[in-house]
């Protein structure tokens, strides 16, 4: 270390206050990134400190390994978590994610990190009760680290370049793991063409989760309720398509297995039922935006035409997480403007787990 600039401060408290004052914090106290802590962090990854992992809009500045490590220290990550943060930065900054738009839109989408793979449990990621909430260091600090990178390296500040009308609390930390062990389906990452033995991070920019009730209900009833929530007129998706995320609670997953629902079955059911009549959709966004993002087969002259929430069933992402099965959850996306799911392999040092990362 280090290509990064350094400053001298009196002590820990002075560092925290300086970071608040100068706008390098997300509004919560940070862990002061001393050279020693950052060096320790950098020793955990295969990348060199000066390697450029991505460029982060709107500044389009280079996010080097070292800058990401500095922000990960600030967020409270352990060194073992840095490879996950780096994968998340890579995923978020992929061109198809349109991070420039995600960072600056008036919409409330925030990059959600979804962790899959064999080491999610050894790292301690929560995939059950309160999965979107507080209480677990990996979820909290990895999520926070990505947001700090987007803020500090991207130069993105609310009301200046970040024009989100509301945003949501996931802007502090928004990271879940899939409950692969209790899912009736292959892991979400495997459905996205990775091997089950690989650790994978998927980033999908979305609104905060909305719980959808379904206590002891048959699967078709649960899905009907989910479809109703997915197709709310005020969400971007029914207006301009894009992608959505549906999270089936761990407690509800056995019912899906017992009734023989595949993930593709769920996607098709939701896609067929999560629709709104065109007359309900009209008048809330520019007509040309609706027209641009809607499927070409949609008859825009028919006010009764059923408008889907995505252009295809595959754009409805389905995974298992959370606790007892009183609720499932929906996270609406930004729509066809961007923020769609992008997955990246987590790259470990060869000796990270006492074995080669295959």
């Amino acid at each position, binding site marked *: 270390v280090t290509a990064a*600039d350094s400053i001298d*401060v009196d002590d820990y408290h002075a*560092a925290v206050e300086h*970071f608040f004052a100068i706008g390098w914090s997300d509004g919560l106290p940070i862990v*002061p990134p*001393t050279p020693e802590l950052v060096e320790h962090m950098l020793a955990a990854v295969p990348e060199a400190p000066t390697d450029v992992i991505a460029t982060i809009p709107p500044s389009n500045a280079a996010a080097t390994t*070292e800058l990401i490590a500095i922000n990960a220290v600030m967020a409270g990550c352990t060194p073992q978590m840095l490879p996950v943060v780096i994968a998340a930065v890579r995923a978020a900054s992929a061109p198809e994610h349109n991070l420039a738009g995600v960072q600056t839109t008036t*919409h409330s989408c925030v990059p959600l990190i979804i962790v899959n793979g064999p080491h999610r449990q050894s790292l301690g990621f929560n995939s059950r009760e309160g999965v979107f909430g507080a209480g677990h260091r990996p979820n909290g600090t990895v999520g926070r680290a990505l947001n700090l990178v987007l803020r500090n*390296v991207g*130069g993105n500040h609310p009301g200046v370049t970040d024009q989100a009308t509301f945003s949501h609390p996931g802007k502090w930390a928004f990271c879940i793991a899939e409950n692969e062990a209790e899912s009736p389906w292959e892991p979400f990452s495997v459905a996205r063409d990775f091997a089950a033995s690989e650790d994978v991070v998927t980033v999908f920019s979305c609104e905060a989760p909305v719980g959808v009730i379904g206590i002891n209900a048959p699967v078709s009833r649960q899905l009907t309720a989910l479809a109703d929530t997915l197709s709310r007129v005020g969400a971007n998706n029914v207006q301009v398509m894009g992608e959505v995320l549906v999270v089936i609670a761990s407690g509800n997953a056995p019912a899906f297995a017992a009734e023989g629902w595949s993930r593709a079955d769920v996607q098709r059911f939701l896609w067929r039922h999560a629709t709104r009549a065109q007359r309900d959709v009209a008048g809330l966004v520019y007509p040309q935006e609706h027209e641009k993002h809607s499927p070409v087969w949609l008859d825009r002259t028919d006010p009764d035409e059923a408008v889907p929430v995505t252009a295809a069933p595959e754009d409805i992402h389905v995974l298992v997480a959370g606790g007892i099965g009183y609720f499932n959850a929906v996270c609406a996306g930004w729509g066809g403007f961007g923020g769609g799911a992008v997955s990246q392999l987590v790259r470990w040092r060869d000796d990270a787990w006492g074995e080669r990362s295959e």
Partner: protein
Amino acid sequence: MKVLVPVPPSLRRDEDGDHIGPRGRPPVLGVVDDGFGTVLFPPVLDVLRERLGVTDVVYHLKPNITAAVDEATLDDLERRCRAVIVGVCA
């Protein structure tokens, strides 16, 4: 106590905000407005006028958010302005 800076060197100049805005004199600012700027831009312009002495604004309002800006307009903005704000907002 030494701590590392979490922002890239290019952004450290932002700490005083001095580099923001049009350089040169007279500071004429170009704006390409996607339609939302009529709401969002006035308070920004107030700040730029107060802090940077922006004297004039060449304002181009797009007919809709997805419309392209023609080359003649871009040439005009380039010729007349020291900086251009391109509003992309959705």
